[in-house]
């Protein structure tokens, strides 16, 4: 019985120690390499080979059931997904060479200038390079009429290189997602914005409530246990046990 209590105490203290270490542990940031993308580092060599442009485009003959609001004009003006709303700022978006006249462009890597695009999960996790989608030089602006990225042909010219049978609907997936918590996203991608808020409140609400609930509960139980120990009651199961080294 004595050993068991001791063991219990040891485990408890180890757990508390672990918890303390967890909180005090320095953040893992310094342990990480200081590169914009540790995954793409070795892929730089592939950049100029043009290898990825040799894929054939092979659209399947499937009638699209879902149409993209940006591509096919719709009668309803309200759509939940309107990338056009954020396009105003992109002055180079309609150029044939979106980097025309940008100094030192040749000497630099995509992720140095396009930092946010380079960290997006789709490109990082899929282990894709920018050029696999954006192609070789010159990189056309997204809205340049003859750009492979133009929404009217993006599905066939870009996505279908890897996703056989990609449809217009498929190509409306946003590879470079806007930040869901960003207020600007409410205009450009409302459903993402509200989904984010919904989940955020759900998580904070559920965890907040139950963590407080658990803490108060354990506090109360501890309080009762201490009080019970102070005045030994007759209905304790194992009476001859008080002289513990507490």
């Amino acid at each position, binding site marked *: 019985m004595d050993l068991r209590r001791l063991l219990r105490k040891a485990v408890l203290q180890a757990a508390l120690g672990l918890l303390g270490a967890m909180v005090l542990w320095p953040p*893992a940031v310094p342990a990480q390499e200081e590169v914009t993308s540790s995954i793409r580092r070795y892929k730089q060599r592939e950049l100029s080979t043009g290898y990825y442009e040799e894929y054939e485009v092979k659209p399947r003959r499937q009638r*699209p059931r879902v149409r993209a609001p940006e591509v096919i004009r719709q009668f309803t003006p309200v759509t*939940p997904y309107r990338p056009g709303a954020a396009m105003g700022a992109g002055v180079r978006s309609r150029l044939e060479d979106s980097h025309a006249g940008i100094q030192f462009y040749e000497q630099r890597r995509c992720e140095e200038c396009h930092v946010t695009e380079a960290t997006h999960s789709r490109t990082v996790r899929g282990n894709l390079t920018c050029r696999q989608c954006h192609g070789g030089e010159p990189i056309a602006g997204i809205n340049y009429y003859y750009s492979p990225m133009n929404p009217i042909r993006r599905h066939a010219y870009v996505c279908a290189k890897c996703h056989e049978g990609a449809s217009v609907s498929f190509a*409306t997936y946003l590879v470079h997602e806007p930040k869901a918590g960003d207020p600007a996203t409410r205009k450009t*991608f409302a459903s*993402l914005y509200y989904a984010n808020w919904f989940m955020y409140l*759900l998580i904070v609400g559920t965890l907040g409530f139950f963590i407080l609930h658990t803490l108060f509960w354990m506090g*109360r139980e501890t309080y009762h*246990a201490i009080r019970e120990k102070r005045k030994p009651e007759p209905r304790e199961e194992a009476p001859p046990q008080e002289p513990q080294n507490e």
Partner: protein
Amino acid sequence: MNDPVRIVRFSIFDRLFHVFIMVTFLIQAVTGMGRLLYTTAWGKGVVNLFGGYDGATAVHNTVGILMLIGFVIHIVYVLAKVEWKSWRRSLFDADSLLPRRRDVVHLGQKIRWFFGLGPPPAFDRWTYWEKFDYWAVFWGLPLLAVTGLPLMFPLAASRIMPGWVLNVFVLLHRAEALLAMLYIFIIHFTIGHFRRGMFPMNECMFAGSVELEKERKEKPLWIARLQEEGRLEEVMVAGPPRWYRVIYFVFGYSAVVVGLYLLLNLLIYRSYIEWH
């Protein structure tokens, strides 16, 4: 040494479902978190256990489908369990897991008790937090399935929904999974096992039975009801054999250790979690 009297709490099916959800949930948590934190050295290490990113994805997808099958089987089991002849009683009596008005009352009493303003609530068979545990899984699984399946088959999914819906689904899937992990690894573990009086391990979900005297304190109304209906003798069983206890102690504690390890790394690498 005379063993304490024990009464049945969970049937063999209940326990099998619980073990099933434990194993599949932890596999999903490991493969999911490894990929979520793929940009970190830790994430890559975890993913490499499954043969790289693609391997982890394959495991995640397969186990996801298994979970879905398990969920369907569970629903069939639950529907078969209801006595449809007297469905009103069967669905809404105290043995049912459906929420009742009394659960809210109990919560209020419990909060009062936290501040020393009243006695603790007298529970029947299921307490409100146990019911919440059950229903949290019950709506979490469909949400994860509905968002996960389209991500597994994005091309097929884009034929019945616009592609940008997948962006929303990624977010929902991730957020729900994080919520589930945090809830299980913090709250479920604490209430179930780390609480005073439960500490080394709450064995009822593995043993299937509980000690009568302990339960008289925790859930007095249940015991009283059993006594009133004269069924107390009926539900008495022998305790679990020693070898079985050893097995589930090892199994249960491995699960807890995996969970806490994931929680630890979730906290350490929190700044790398891509929320959007």
